[in-house]
């Protein structure tokens, strides 16, 4: 009941935003197009144009060249992986091969997409159309993907993982030692690229991400004795491990565009909230995906000893979960017990609800920007994210 009220609220809110953005029709269909990745903006062109003031109004764009919301940013990211591979070129052949392994173009590149969407939306808002600025922003998108990948390579060694994106992981193919060194190499190349952007503030922002990633990993090793602190600990860990990179990348592209601190904060907060929601949905799916298939092993996170949002919410109802959390589900049957109690509690519902709140807040942030196709794409991203939960 509460949940459905929330959905209704969100939808009402969304449609309000959407109509403010581009005067797109009415009724339930108002948000439907946002949930579909392939909606062509072509049919909405005239409406977008009316909402778009200044720069494009005196530029005549041939009808057939107007891209979909998705390709709006994708076209900016064309050659993203080629550029990254090029950057990793200058070393010994074997290291080059390891470092390039995950940049084969099969990744979702979700971080570069968010980063470039934000960059374009902010540029539009500030009427910033210097090609030099966009070039630098594309570099940030690359660097974000490189930092993310370097951390994946290290995480796979830490978690003794044997596959990623349905291929054998780097550590399986080349061993742990070479994988770790390759991760350092990717990071070093990314830092060099960052320095060449010639912007002090951007360097400070992205080095904070590196510190956050490690600290988040350390936080994941420990659990809080005090159960009242546990959720705050989990949220902080989630920010550091997942949201920090997205948030600071969004802020960095806004800095390059010349944003003042208010605008930078909008960019950062959108990234933070989207990142938090992203992880919450991931944590939720870890339970849902397995519960659908009886006989399959229970949640992978529990196996790794991690107490994520669904468990922490469940523990508020079933206090017998607390000792299991503290011993990181290590004893036989712990993971199964925890899994059962989560399903009996409102843990999954409350996780969903929290993810929605974060998405809601993310949308509120970008609603403050001048309406543009890019701004709409940011709203779309938030909704696509929630859509994964269904």
């Amino acid at each position, binding site marked *: 009941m509460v949940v459905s009220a929330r959905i209704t609220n969100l939808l009402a809110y969304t449609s309000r935003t959407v109509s403010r953005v581009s005067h797109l029709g009415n009724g339930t269909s108002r948000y439907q197009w946002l949930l579909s990745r392939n909606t062509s903006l072509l049919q909405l062109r005239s409406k977008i144009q009316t909402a778009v003031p200044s720069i494009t109004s005196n530029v005549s764009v041939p009808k057939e060249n107007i891209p979909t919301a998705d390709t709006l940013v994708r076209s900016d990211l064309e050659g993203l992986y080629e550029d990254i591979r090029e950057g990793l070129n200058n070393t*010994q052949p074997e290291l080059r091969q390891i470092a390039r392994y995950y940049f084969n173009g099969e990744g979702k590149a979700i971080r570069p997409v968010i980063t470039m969407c934000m960059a374009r939306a902010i540029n539009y808002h500030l009427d910033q159309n210097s090609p030099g600025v966009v070039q630098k922003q594309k570099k940030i998108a690359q660097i974000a993907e490189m930092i993310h990948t370097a951390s994946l390579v290290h995480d796979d060694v830490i978690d003794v993982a044997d596959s990623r994106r349905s291929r054998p992981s780097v550590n399986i193919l080349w061993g742990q*030692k070479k994988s*770790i060194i390759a991760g350092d190499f990717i990071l*070093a190349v990314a830092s060099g690229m960052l320095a060449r952007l010639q912007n*002090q503030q951007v360097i400070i922002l992205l080095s904070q991400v590196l*510190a956050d990633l490690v600290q988040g990993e*350390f936080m994941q090793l420990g659990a809080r004795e005090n159960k009242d602190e546990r959720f705050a600990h989990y949220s902080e860990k989630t920010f550091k491990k997942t949201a920090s990179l997205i948030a600071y990348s969004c802020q960095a592209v806004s800095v390059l565009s010349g944003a003042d601190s208010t605008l930078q904060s909008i960019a950062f907060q959108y990234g933070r909230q989207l990142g938090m929601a992203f992880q919450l949905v991931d944590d939720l799916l870890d339970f849902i995906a397995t519960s659908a298939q009886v006989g399959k092993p229970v949640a992978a996170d529990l196996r790794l000893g991690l107490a994520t949002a669904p468990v922490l919410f469940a523990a508020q109802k079933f206090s017998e979960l607390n000792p299991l959390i503290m011993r990181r589900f290590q004893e036989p049957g712990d993971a199964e017990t925890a899994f059962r109690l989560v399903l009996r509690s409102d843990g999954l519902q409350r996780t969903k609800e929290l993810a929605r709140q974060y998405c809601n807040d993310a949308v509120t942030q970008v609603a403050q920007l001048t309406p543009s196709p890019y701004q709409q794409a940011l709203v779309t991203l938030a909704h696509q994210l929630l859509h994964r939960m269904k």
Partner: protein
Amino acid sequence: MVFRSCLIRWKTHHLGSSIHPVVSFSRSLFASSQVYQTSWVQAVSNAEKVVGFPTSFLSLRSVANDEISNIAVYLKKLIGTGHPLITTAKNLVYSNDKTHQTRGLLVLLMSKAAKKESGQDILPEQRTLAEITELVHTAHLIHTGVINLNTPNANLEMGNKMAVLCGDFFLAHSCVQLATLQNLKVVELIAQAISDYSTAEFIEVVASENDSALDRWTQQMKLRYGSLIAHACQSTLILGNNVDLIEAGKSFGLEIALAWQANNEIQSYQNNANKADHVLSKLFPETPSVDVLSNFQAVRDRHVDAALKMLTAFPQNDASLALGNIVRALKY
């Protein structure tokens, strides 16, 4: 042979005036390494006095929250597993032989050696850089200590996990510190050093069509150790605005790193029972071990001399003298 080594020892004892003669004559096989250690410890200890206080990991204290202090707890669990992380950690905490944290010291000496007036002190940014250099090197040591595991081994997996995290922690902290220096060139130089030492792990020391094995050894050591020290020396001169000394400082850093590493190889060759498997035997194949040693001592001495030559560009002061003494100590 015995006579020859006695002669060398006699010479070293005369050249290094501060060394007690008893040391050089009382130990038969390891004498030269003892002499080296004594003169090295002396040179480094004197140099530490020149820069006021040695490098420390002071700034780490401000970030070491409770999660990170758990490292100690995890490290304790690793004792007895034989994971290299334990040795690295032990050397960081207790080092009596003054072979650790010398990179930071070199950066501080270089900073001070470049000051033209005696009253000028080392800048806070230069001290931060010295610490960053030490952190990056430590991260390098820790990450190259990650071991390959083909079969599951819970203890060693835990060791690897901690090694990855500790190394990442040092690297991330050095990036944050680098950003505070507000100098883009310095960020680029240190990043280059990290990518160089990563590359070094993939170079094999074997003769190829174009390079001799010695060339490959030199190339590997340049990348593995030379790049960080050279770039750190270059960076501290950039921060100190000693524009005219940058090139000399950078070359000095590279040469001292190579001399230092050459000296390490010599010490380990001398103390190694199985000389045929040692890297030096690969550099000079089918050569009697006494000639291997003298050939390679000549290589080391070339780097020592090149480093000393670079120092002549610097003003005469206690820091540049200390740098000279450290370099000369590597000859024994």
